[in-house]
């Protein structure tokens, strides 16, 4: 095989054992890499019902055949496990030198099983693999962890690490890298913490085997130039994802006061234009020429990364109207290794619960000092932080049934920064996202606004599926970043050419979308095996707030989602995917996708139609 290394590094931390697995071409062609490899491994190898924070869970770190090559925004990898937040499949992608080094060390993935007795970190240098003591790192934040590891191993390494939140098993702890990148929203950092694994350090020195290296380099050069020449390149470089803030306010989709509203009265104090004025530096992932990590100073003078999602959830969603204060919360979350989206949702939920008298703690909207205190308490599970570290679904179950309507999550994962009172297509996208309510798979809202927001029509369903195939299937398995395509209009056809030059295999975009469908069906099977009889279509339905409580502010005051309309979209979605009315794939659908063995296994848990 060319393009793929054909090797997976296997680490058993309980047995202190390292092995190298060679995998066959079928895995590569059926699942490509990244998310595809992750779900295949987790489906095949995890015991159903396993406690996600027990040694029996497995942590998968997976690259794809384009990862680490001299191609645009290709320095990314996927981290995945059974999620301690949702109980289902969980993953995330992040940019990291670890992606490039993993591939150059001769592997496409690492699978970590078991748990160490004392804190350790993994050191990989080509064939040399060591499990080393991390006792001097345990308790450190992610910035200090990276610094210490670089002092020890030199700068030419890739690092994935967790902060105190991962160590303390905060259910929405992430994995961090490059002093700015984060991935694994559904608590993949907590899985790493449960294994007492503080960090993974990789140094790779080999060449990645390529089918046509000359062609690949040529395509790479052309592609980088193409991206740089795009008309909106300059603006992107200046504002990155923060440009979305003004857009969301204008369209009344900015999450505000725990998703009660879609507009914020102080939005113009915390948007991309303000960020641009305060900007002191720009960071990003390896191999990227459109780096999006824009750095602003926080209240302590530290540099924090200002991405739209962070600012959406830790700004308007908690009523905070000062960009420097928001930057402080982001810096703290990044240092502790907490997902900023879930964190903003948890704090917003806590503020609302306080306002309604459902908790004793007094936390007012926009109270920066209190928010800071909560972030620290969550990271260390101190006082109320122990409950808040569980995520909004569990907090809501604890404080009372009446809070369920405004516990803003789907499948247990907190909703990312788009209010859907008046965006039924986007609500469907959140509902059917395979890890819970995340925007990564099908960010359909922009297209929806272009064609009309009122409609509950089948074209919206088709668009959600199209995006899921491209974003959630293709990009997550190749693994490269989707932003050149979606933000700058870089054409998808490039990726089939890249893949051909890297691997020698001709796969059309349609072939890649079929792989995407296979991945989706398998992820769905994973959820259903875990939830068995408890699985139903409510798992794909957004919280009641969007259906029951209309917007009260802005040009779209009075708008809310129509419940029956949403259910109609969901039924069409199931039908198009070949899933039944419960959202479970038909036996025939599994068979068509080459997943008959999955159907056989799943029938032990639910009756298939």
């Amino acid at each position: 095989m060319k393009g793929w290394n054909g090797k997976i590094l296997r680490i058993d931390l309980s047995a202190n054992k390292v092995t190298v697995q060679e995998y066959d071409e079928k895995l590569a062609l059926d699942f490509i890499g990244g998310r595809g490899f992750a779900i295949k491994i987790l489906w095949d190898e995890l015991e159903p019902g396993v406690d996600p924070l027990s040694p029996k869970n497995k942590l998968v770190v997976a690259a794809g055949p384009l990862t680490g090559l001299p191609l645009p925004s290709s320095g990314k990898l996927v981290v995945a496990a059974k999620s301690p937040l949702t109980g289902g499949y969980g993953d995330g992608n992040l940019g990291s030198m670890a992606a490039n080094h993993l591939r150059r060390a001769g592997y496409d993935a690492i699978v970590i099983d078991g748990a160490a007795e004392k804190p350790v970190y993994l050191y990989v240098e080509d064939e040399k693999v060591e499990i080393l003591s991390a006792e001097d790192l345990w308790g450190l934040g992610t910035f200090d962890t990276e610094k210490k590891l670089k002092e020890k191993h030199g700068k030419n390494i890739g690092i994935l690490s967790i902060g105190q939140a991962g160590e303390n098993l905060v259910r929405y702890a992430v994995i961090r890298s490059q002093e700015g990148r984060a991935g694994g929203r559904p608590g993949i950092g907590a899985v790493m913490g449960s294994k007492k694994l503080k960090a993974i350090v990789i140094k790779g020195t080999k060449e990645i085997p390529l089918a046509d290296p000359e062609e690949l380099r040529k395509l790479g050069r052309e592609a980088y130039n193409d991206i740089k020449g795009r008309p909106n390149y300059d603006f992107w470089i200046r504002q990155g994802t923060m440009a979305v803030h003004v857009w969301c306010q204008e369209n009344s989709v900015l999450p505000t006061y725990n998703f009660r509203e879609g507009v914020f009265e102080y939005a113009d104090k915390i948007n991309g234009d303000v960020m641009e004025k305060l900007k002191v530096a720009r960071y990003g992932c390896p191999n990227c020429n459109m780096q999006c990590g824009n750095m602003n100073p926080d209240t302590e003078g530290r540099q924090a990364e200002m991405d739209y999602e962070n600012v959406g959830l830790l700004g308007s969603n908690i009523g905070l109207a000062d960009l420097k204060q928001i930057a402080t919360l982001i810096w703290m979350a990044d240092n502790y290794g907490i997902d900023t989206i879930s964190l903003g949702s948890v704090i917003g939920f806590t503020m609302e619960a306080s306002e309604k008298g459902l908790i004793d703690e007094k936390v007012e909207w926009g109270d920066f000092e209190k928010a800071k205190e909560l972030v620290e308490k969550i990271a260390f599970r101190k006082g109320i932080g122990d409950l808040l570290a569980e995520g909004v679904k569990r907090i809501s179950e604890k404080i009372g049934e009446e809070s369920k309507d405004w516990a803003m999550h789907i499948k247990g994962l907190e909703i990312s920064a788009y209010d859907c009172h008046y965006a039924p297509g986007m609500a469907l996208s959140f509902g059917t996202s395979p890890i819970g309510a995340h925007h990564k798979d099908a960010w359909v809202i922009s297209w929806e606004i272009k064609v009309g927001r009122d409609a509950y029509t089948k074209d919206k369903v088709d668009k959600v599926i199209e995006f899921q195939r491209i974003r959630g299937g293709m990009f997550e398995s190749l693994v490269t970043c989707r932003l050149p395509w979606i933000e700058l209009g870089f054409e998808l056809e490039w990726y089939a050419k890249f893949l051909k030059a890297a691997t020698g295999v001709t796969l059309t975009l349609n072939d890649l979308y079929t792989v995407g469908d296979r991945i989706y069906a398998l992820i769905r099977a994973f959820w259903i095996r875990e939830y068995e009889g408890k699985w139903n279509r409510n798992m794909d339905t957004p919280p009641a707030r969007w259906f029951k409580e209309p917007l009260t502010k802005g040009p779209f005051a009075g708008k809310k989602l129509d419940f029956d309309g949403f259910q109609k979209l969901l039924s069409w979605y199931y039908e198009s995917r070949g899933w039944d009315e419960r959202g479970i794939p038909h036996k025939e659908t599994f068979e068509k996708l080459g997943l008959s063995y999955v159907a056989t296994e799943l029938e032990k848990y639910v009756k298939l139609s």
Partner: protein
Amino acid sequence: MIGWIADLAKFKEKEIKIEFPIKVKELLNIKEIDEIDEERIIVLINGKPATLETKVKNNDNVVVMPVIGGG
């Protein structure tokens, strides 16, 4: 105008009086406009979906913004 469209058009908001209906495209005055795939641009006139080719009359409220990816 919003986002990179505003950046290329070099204005965010303005009131224009027109003699006779003209296309949204002509209001924008973006020299690169033909290089941009129209699929990547959202046009709303009085809140309703429209295109760059739609004609605008006096008192119409025109919003032009990019189709974006949202991180």
